[in-house]
């Protein structure tokens, strides 16, 4: 029986993603603690008050963040795919939200679907045009007309 022939340390160091996570959760719990301590807490007899429970939870979060820093175990490597695409998708979603309040649901959906299709790699003009328009109207029809749920109004909706 041969002993271990490489000299890897027996205690795995904390991965970078864990460090970032710990930092973020420390930040969040601190923010919560400060935020809660700033709220007015009218004392009401035996009620521990609106700050008590959030403090308890945030305190535990703090503890867990510290535990994360002290942790062991092999960190899973962060893999990144096509990040540009991801960022653009998120940007498109924000754009979608902004447009909806300005030009109404249908028009905003057409623009967004177009963007999403392009980001998904679709290049055929027929699909781009027909699908964007078709999907937007179809969803509008189902949600607003069939189900009666209100959607942001714009020039198109007023006409329908």
């Amino acid at each position: 029986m041969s002993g271990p022939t490489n000299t890897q340390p027996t205690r795995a160091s904390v991965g970078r993603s864990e460090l970032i996570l710990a930092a973020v959760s420390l930040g969040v719990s601190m923010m919560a603690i400060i935020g809660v301590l700033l709220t007015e807490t009218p004392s009401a007899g035996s009620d521990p008050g609106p700050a008590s429970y959030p403090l308890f939870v945030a305190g535990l979060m703090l503890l867990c963040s510290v535990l994360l820093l002290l942790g062991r175990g092999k960190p899973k490597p962060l893999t990144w795919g096509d990040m540009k695409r991801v960022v653009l998708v998120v940007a498109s979603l924000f754009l979608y939200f902004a447009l909806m309040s300005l030009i109404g649901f249908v028009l905003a959906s057409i623009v967004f679907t177009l963007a999403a299709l392009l980001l998904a790699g679709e290049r055929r003009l027929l699909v781009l045009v027909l699908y964007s328009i078709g999907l937007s109207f179809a969803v509008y029809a189902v949600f607003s007309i069939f189900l009666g749920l209100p959607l942001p109004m714009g020039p198109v909706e007023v006409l329908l």
Partner: protein
Amino acid sequence: MENWLIGLEAILSPLPLLMLVVGIFGGIVIGALPGLTAVMGVAVLLPFTFAMDPLPGMMLMVGIYTSAIYAGSIPAILMRVPGTPSSAAAVLDGYPMAKAGKAGPALSISLYSSFFGSLLGGIGLAVFAPLLATIALKVGQAEYFMIALFALTIIASISEGSLVKGLLSGLFGLLLATVGTDPLVGTARLTFGIPELRSGLDFIPILIGLFGVAEAMHQFERRFGKARDGAKTASPARFTLGSRIRKRMWPGVAMGGPIGFLIGVLPGTGGEVGSFVSYNETRRVSRDKSQFGHGDPRGLAAAETGHNSAVPGTLAPTLTLGIPGNSVAAVMIGVLTVHGLRPGPGLFEGDPALTYGIMVGFLLVPFGLLLVGLAGIRAWGQILRIPPVILWPAILVLCTVGAYSIRSNLFDVVVMVIFGVVGYLMDKVNVPTTPLVIGLIVGPIAEQGFRRATILAEGSFSWVFQPVPLIILLACIVSIAVSVIRERRHGRDQERTDNLSPQDRVDERAQ
């Protein structure tokens, strides 16, 4: 008895039944498409239920939930890719069977196991839930707090990633639930001056973001790649069960049914755990273990039965205590809350048409599933051909519409996108998102329990040491301890194998 009749009468009307059927079809598509999960399907389609009464809405969800859980096994068997994450156990014996040319019998076993599983689970729910509801009346504030905590520790300990990450996720969920107005006193909390936050964070946009938008982001990042191409779709040849295979199926079904259901009942656990534990236990009690993992019908039957019987199980704590059995059940709570209803013993008393109707629905859905499944088994392969380029933009549109239509509030769309990013990042660093959802839902329950118990104990925390809360607290500690020990052991084994030289590894394997 009359409650059952009320429930039956409520269900046997056109809209609930229609919604059940629609749900079954929708669920099969969602379940069969890898990348679409049951949670996501239920979350994205939740807004469709806003316009209808709670019972048809719940029937839609029940249909989707049940059939998505079944259909996840289809690509698992044919392509080694689970259609929904919790169908992973079906791969173990299902895929080897398909490779050996027995895809047809494998799919049949899966269908019949799912049928029996969901039926057994439905019976379990019918028996168990009313009992649990009467006990629930005696559950006090302190107990609610402890049970909520317990649910979180369980879900944190079984989730992907380490226990600490699971706990962080759950605690974050609890914290998010406190944003808004204090329930007892009415002061604004953690709103940071943003007026829209005064009414708190609605959990539905968060849900849609975490599960729908985040998954879409992953898909776009991966350019929809994966085991789509390459793995040959085995064509299902025969669909009738040979009697030889049918005989072999039963041990798996017999074990999977009760085990899956009981695991589903535990707050925080659901289909995945149900199917794996059923699989393991069936394997353990079998005399001939050699075929497990290589195409043993019992393995597939156990996994699928356990998987499906957990589904009604998760509704037991959800309906009776308001504490979701897992994240899908958590979303289903949304169907009720949107109509101003709160799950719990009050709902059982006050609206038997709804609660007993739901339980009757769970008894009906297996039959619907069986019919649809038998009729369509050949067609399911076609579903896998929907081009992702078309699918994912549509999903994002549906998510956005869904988030908006809850409160006709564009702010909810922003919340959805933000939590889409949060969910995406959480997945990247291997922090499970389910505890966050559970935390968000049980947060108010936990806090009310905490505050009210303290008020009742006149300002002291002595309620922690009352017998029942104390027992539950000890259960929490035990589950955390078990999880830590298991992690340590796994970590040590991992390090040991990492430190071995290649020769050592060969020697090890030879032993």
